[in-house]
């Protein structure tokens, strides 16, 4: 904006503003961050919507994601191809769902996807074990991990299929008021 070259047209800005929770300034900031990741790949001019995807190896180096135990999952979930290759739109999407304004339902859906490692739309025991291993950097013994996971499933599973469906997950989240503020990445 200003005296610099145009990065987005007004229509693009409006589309972004209507479809995400960001303002014009934040979109520009996001673009800056995206550009930073790969200055030679990402052009400054996005008016013609170039289709450039950054591989996960690049995106997870962002300071916001670098230390996140779920970084790989996050980029995978938000990438269109499921491999973690993020286009700028995916990138905006990602931070839109993770921003403060996003409603609980939206966050819950994406959180569920992130925790659902095998993509079967249930959080089964393997998913929880993977989650736990990421969260505790392997300090617990396998028995303990298994015990914690089965206890967790037992607690949260309402319909008795010994895995957590989305409704179980939502129900659990409704009891965790912190979720809204913790499932949140500032950019």
């Amino acid at each position, binding site marked *: 904006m200003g005296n610099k070259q145009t990065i987005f047209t007004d229509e693009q800005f409006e589309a972004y503003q209507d*479809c995400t929770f960001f303002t014009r300034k934040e979109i520009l900031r996001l673009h800056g961050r995206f550009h930073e990741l790969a200055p030679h790949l990402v052009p400054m001019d996005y008016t013609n919507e170039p289709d450039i995807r950054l591989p996960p190896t690049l995106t997870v180096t962002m300071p916001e994601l670098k230390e996140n135990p779920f970084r790989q999952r996050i980029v995978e979930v938000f990438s269109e191809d499921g491999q973690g290759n993020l286009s700028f739109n995916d990138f905006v999407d990602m931070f839109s769902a993770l921003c403060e304004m996003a409603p609980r339902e939206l966050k819950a859906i994406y959180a569920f996807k992130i925790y659902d490692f095998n993509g079967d*739309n249930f959080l089964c025991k393997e998913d929880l074990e993977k989650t736990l291993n990421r969260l*505790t*950097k392997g300090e617990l013994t396998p028995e303990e991990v298994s015990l914690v996971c089965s206890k967790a499933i037992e607690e949260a599973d309402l319909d008795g299929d010994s895995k957590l469906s989305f409704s179980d997950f939502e129900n659990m989240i409704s009891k965790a*008021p*912190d979720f809204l503020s913790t499932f949140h990445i500032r950019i």
Partner: protein
Amino acid sequence: MSYYNNSGGYNNPAYHDSDTLQIDRSPPRKSQHGNPHGNPYPREDGAVLRERSDLHQLPGGGQTISDDAQGRVPWGGLQEESWRGEDCLPVGLLPPQSESPQWQHDFSHSGYQVDQKAHYDTTPLVRLPSTTSGHVSMRFRGSRKMSLFPVGEAALCNLGLSEDDVKNEMDNEEENLIKELVAMSTRDRIKAIRDLPMTFADKKHIRGQVLVFKSFKKSQKWNCFADCSKTVTLSFRRCGANMTLAGQTLELWRGTMKEVGGKFGTGVLSYFKFLKWLLMFNIFSFLVNFGFITIPQLVSDPVISAEVNFKGLELLTGAGYFNQTVLYYGGYSNESQGTENKPEYNMQLAYFFTIAAYMLLCGAALIYSMARSFRKRFVLDDKASGGAWQLLCTWDFNVTNERAVRQRKNNLSIQLKESLSDNIRLALLPLSDRLKHYAVFLGTWLLSTAVAVGCGAAIYFLCQYEKEAVNKSSGSLVDEASTLLLPFVVSLVNLVVPLFYSLFRKIEVYSNPRMQVYVIILRNVILKMSILGILCYYWVTDVAEQFPCWEAVVGQGLYRLVVMDFLFLMLGSFFGEFLSNVIGTNCIQSLGVPEFDIARNVLDLIYAQTLAWIGIYFSPLLPVIQIIKFFVLFYLKKVSLTRNCQPPRRAGRAAQMQTIFIAILFFPSFVGAVSLLAYTVWTIPPSESCGPFRGLNTTFSAVHIWIHDLEDVNSARWTVWVFQHVIQSEIFYFLITLIIIVFIYIFWQITQGRKQLIALLRQQIVNEGKDKAFLLEKLQDLQKSKHSKPKPKKETGNRPENESSPGLLQALLARQQMEEEEGRSSTFGVSMPSDRSTSTTSSTMVHAMLLRQQADSQAGSYRGVPFPAEYPALSPTSALIQAMQARQMAESEDEHHRTPVPSQNPVNALPSTMIQVMQARQRAQLELDQDEPYRAPDSYDDPILPTSNAMMQVMQARQRAEEEEESYRTPVSPWLAQQQLQDKYNDRY
């Protein structure tokens, strides 16, 4: 489409005139179909009715008949059809209806395609309650679009649906979504689009379509107005966006907040947010006070008498030089400013109303944020929540610091280990241990209360001492410094006693760590409030009687307290945290690096803010000090935090704590300050010699005088009336109180109801899960059994008829069991689906599947059955016979299944109602089947008689069904809607 007809289709006006519009609408679809089959419905087994638009293509005479008759036959696809055409979506916008030739081929030769439709169509039946609000239904769609719950879709695929069908389904959903979005207001629409769980590209696509559709619709209307309104809304929206942008630019400390959040997580961040929030309060208060009280005073009387020189100690004591300034109450005059030709500025009223308005606004803001916070974050404790919650909801995505991440992981694993051992330990606790715990609990409470009382007493005596010291003071520097004793002691108590309280942590044992935090908070609040209470008592009794300009003295006292508190906060945080860090790292390793105690720090802030609120009347510019204090504190705490502290081990429930802090800020703190101010204003005579209210009986008399003056002004009569009849009348307050109590009672009752509802819904989820599991199992059985015979979808038509009986048996069995299952689950009055799409979708699918299977096998099995004698054998087609028999059977089944259900309990009847409706639908399909032959009249010699016979039969059946349904109508309105739909359809027939 599958969801739409509940929410919109039924109410859609287009539904009623669809038969006339239908012709216009068919072309776009027609072009795809071509007319490859000639007459696609030649025989009875070609009960083909898959696409209504196809009907219009019947050659020759068929055209008119179909337009007339079939156009009225409402069945599954109708609602969908009707809306799809009705709005004349620009053709280019519509996602292409991808009906591949393959698809066509399959369907034109099988007996399945009706069921195919019905299959989709069954979904809304069960989905009804969930789709009552557009928002919810949208969420489903979005979710399905994202294939978050492809269970349904997977099931579709398993059931042999091609990808095209699934795609079709999704396209339809998208259309419905767009349709729904178009109907919304701009604001709602943007919100809805934002909330869609889709990729940005999809959202943009949908948004584009909605916009084009909107403009298309608009262009049909009067253009000028539309353009104008569009421009206006657009500019409004741009303006709103710019406002948010400006707000963001002004946002303080964004980077710092991010850094703190990244290193210490959300819990610690909430302290800084709270600090910032309080800072905003004070900035606002400063602006208001400065603008409405100080500036007029300075303008009218800028001269500050320079009797006393500035010595430096005033910065601490607030006495001396400051005493003459506008910092205190005493510095304001009681004169009305203004020259003859300008309206005068009444200082008394300005002072009174400014502070009253500020307090009111503060109260409103507090109540608002408290209520919002309660609604959003405060969740009733569920005692069972532990492991799962810890596992899935506690990870703080904010944290970006490598060390912090490591530490968090450590903490979490320790906590998990603890929770594993906790369960065992707590269960095995013997009685003696428990008694010991209770004794410790009691002892600590007694001790803490005693300490609080002791502190209060000490401060009271100190106050008495100070009073005498001030009376005797000669104005020397030492005397002035001695006034600092009281605030020093108060601040010291505030610093030391909480630390002492936190030692109790080592002795007390709580099953719940959160409980411990609450207890500590409660003790601290009691301590702080008792100290403040004593101070206030001293001010309003002793000080108010003794000193000539007592408001300024109180103001000074508050100033000293605020400043001293500030110094102690700095010292406390710096030395407390810094020293314990040094000790922890260098001397005694076991102590470790200190944690940042959020609760204690926030309580300090609350205490500081209480002082500021109390002081606002006595020292209007006290907020300036408060602003400086908070500003410095922010950076100080940040530095101290990053240098000395580690994040708290027990992370979690930070949001809940935040709510509690706001509540504490409101209840003892704000309410206390307001009541003190109210007492001062209403009852204590203001000092005679200084301040704006000198010479009045009470501060509030200023308002009386003003009202008295207003009585002479004609245009202000209403103000006088309001004051005399509302503000001063007891009846008004009595009524208000009564109304509020009634409302509280009503809301309380509503809350109780909601609680019951929540329990019911939870039970429902459980039941849904069981249903789902059962039905999936059945489905698998079915599919296994189907492996023995050819795939039903493609070869139903070719199947030898005598082979169908095992299928029938199977289906009946499955159905029977399904109904038993439902009967069982209906004990809780559930089986009406929730908005949990996962289970509903799949169970609905299974439902539909079973029904289809059953209908199919029934139809198959009756094909060879001899014709019953009571029907005149006037060569009706076998389809007719089938239909009747199937219906008969369905009805008898109805009877059979209804008997066990106790009719006095309407909730229990739900499953049977559902079955009924499904059967009615089934019947409808069969009727449609039976309708087929009459489309080609030349194959019958006398079609009228059987037709009328069939009609009669149908009518009777319908009547019966309606009577039966009537009795179940009351419990659930969505069902009602569906039934009415059914009735309407029957009527049309």
